[in-house]
């Protein structure tokens, strides 16, 4: 994927020069290992700062909502599905966008790599499928395929579903992926154990709301946890309030989530809240045969009614 950057820069410069777009949304090199920063380029000079590697896990569709410029946006498979969702939900107009599609081979899991080493990681270099991690007195080579974020390991839409330019040949989609093995295990737990599983899952939450704010779906003008007239949710570290936030937020994403993994990636305390969104994704698929963001022409299942919709939850 490293070779993509030349093409990304070439396309970006062209689009800016010929006035097709006012800005390009992409990534620039981060200041710590395994981090890149979402970045906009408005001049061909700015374009030089753009980077592409396996540390571009933030979903850039999150930076589109309600913008008025003509935008060129670099989009992986998941970003492109969230762009589709944004268009369906009227958060951005298709005509405003020039989508620079990136066939994606997955992003590396910085948290897992950090946890593998006792010493501080000072540099992570990428070459093809080899990730070289080094620090004071150690160097280790890892296979990138073994180090992917979980959502990337489970991804079945690596290629952008919508694009105007493509930076490389499409990549082969992963086959025979069982996306929901862990979800089925939790579904099978007795209620008490399920409750304690979720209590443990969210026990480290500091309510920074990074998961919500990194999510392209979370664009409500005022989030329910920020409503103050009247206030719906307590603000303390009470576990009931913390769980209320996570459960309700997940339900708001039902039938919309593309499992881009941004929420989990940005969590400063390492919570896998994707457990919730993936359960709803699984239900959307099983009940409605629905995968979010694949088409601009079909209304999402929770947005419409069909006589054949499943209703056996009504007892």
């Amino acid at each position: 994927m490293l070779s993509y950057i030349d093409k990304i820069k070439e396309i970006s410069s062209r689009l800016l020069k010929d006035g097709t777009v006012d800005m390009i949304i992409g990534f620039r090199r981060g200041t710590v290992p395994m981090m890149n920063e979402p970045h906009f380029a408005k001049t061909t000079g700015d374009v030089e700062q753009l980077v592409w590697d396996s540390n571009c896990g933030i979903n850039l569709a999150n930076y589109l909502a309600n913008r008025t410029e003509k935008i060129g946006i670099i989009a992986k498979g998941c970003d492109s599905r969230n762009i589709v969702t944004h268009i369906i939900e009227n958060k951005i107009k298709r005509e405003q966008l020039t989508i620079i599609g990136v066939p994606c081979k997955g992003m590396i899991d910085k948290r897992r790599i950090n946890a593998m080493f006792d010493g501080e990681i000072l540099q992570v270099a990428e070459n093809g499928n080899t990730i070289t991690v080094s620090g004071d007195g150690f160097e280790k080579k890892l296979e990138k395929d073994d180090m992917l974020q979980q959502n990337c390991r489970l991804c079945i839409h690596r290629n952008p579903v919508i694009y105007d330019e493509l930076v490389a040949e499409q990549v082969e989609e992963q086959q025979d992926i069982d996306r929901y093995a862990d979800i089925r295990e939790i579904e099978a737990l007795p209620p008490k154990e399920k409750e304690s599983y979720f209590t443990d899952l969210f026990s480290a939450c500091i309510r920074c709301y990074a998961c919500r704010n990194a999510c392209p779906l979370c664009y409500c003008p005022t989030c329910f946890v920020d409503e103050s007239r009247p206030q719906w949710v307590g603000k303390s570290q009470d576990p009931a309030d913390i769980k209320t936030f996570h459960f309700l937020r997940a339900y708001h994403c039902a039938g919309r989530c593309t499992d881009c993994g941004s929420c989990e990636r940005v969590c400063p305390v390492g919570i896998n809240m994707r457990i919730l969104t993936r359960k709803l994704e699984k239900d959307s698929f099983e009940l409605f045969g629905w995968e979010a963001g694949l088409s601009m022409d079909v209304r999402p299942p929770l947005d419409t009614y069909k006589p054949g919709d499943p209703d056996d939850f009504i007892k």
Partner: protein
Amino acid sequence: MKIVKIDKKTWAAGIEKLTASYRLFGPVKEGDFHNFKELGSGEAPDLDCLNTRLSAKAIIYPQSENMFEYSLDESREDHHILKEVDTDYSPRAVIGIRPCDAKAFELVGLNFDTSEYKDPYWIKAREATTLIGLACSSPGSNCFCTTAGCGPFHEDGLDALVVDTGDHFLAKILTEKGEQLFAAAGWKQEAKAAGKQIEALKQEAEAKIASSVNTDNLSALDTTQLYNASFWEDVSFSCINCGTCTFVCPTCWCFDIQDETHGNSGVRMRNWDSCMYPLFTLHGTGHNPRGTKLHRVRQRFMHKLKYYVDKYDAGIQCVGCGRCVRSCPVNIDIRRVCELMNSFDSEKDTCAA
């Protein structure tokens, strides 16, 4: 100032003795991260921890803290009267706090303990707390304490500074609170000549700090011009307005007060607030002077690196612990922003007012 030598074999026994007179807190590994926790009996602080994920701030200034309680039951004589809650201010000690986190309490004190205003909760907790620091012999790559008014062997805010020499610990006793704690632990073997050794280790550690900020020009800058600088759009673009930077920061002090009522009784509490949040400084009218992302991001950096500098003349409101650099989900780096601010030239800034 006294220096005490502690045989590593007597360390655990000393810590155990302290539990008789202190509630002990220290860094403990939980999952992939270290955090400060109250230590149970037989539990030792993990001194191999580079630094904790969250700072030690919450030991004195909890994320959620009850201040008052009340009853709405009108059959009670004391209904609708706020009464102070019973809080445990018995002696507590933090073992293994890094010098940056201890220094941070000094910075926060400039706000919570002034001649004009006194925050009783913070002050009582601060007074109850003895801070036993652990000098950093191997600082992290994002630590920039030496240029943020602090350092790996910095002593401000600490009651004692423990230095790991490899064979044993050397401790500089810095205050009377420190004396008392060492007496309670039974660590009393004086090492009068060890000052030079500590000084040498200090210089070695300071030389390892590879990261820095320039702050020399901040106070001379015109506040309004800096506020209107064109770089804020670039700085704030990637920000998702989460509270991570402010919550991991040992010097962020903002809080929000809430009443929570259950049935007929309730508490008035305060919770950490964050300048990143949409409710922060939202007025009763619905107007918010910091209504956009750019406003909020600028507020955070202007507060730490300009308003604080101007108001207290005590340097920047940052100790260089590097937590926000490491934890920011989108890698906004205060060192980079500080450089943009410090080198700001209004003449050359096309968009400046």
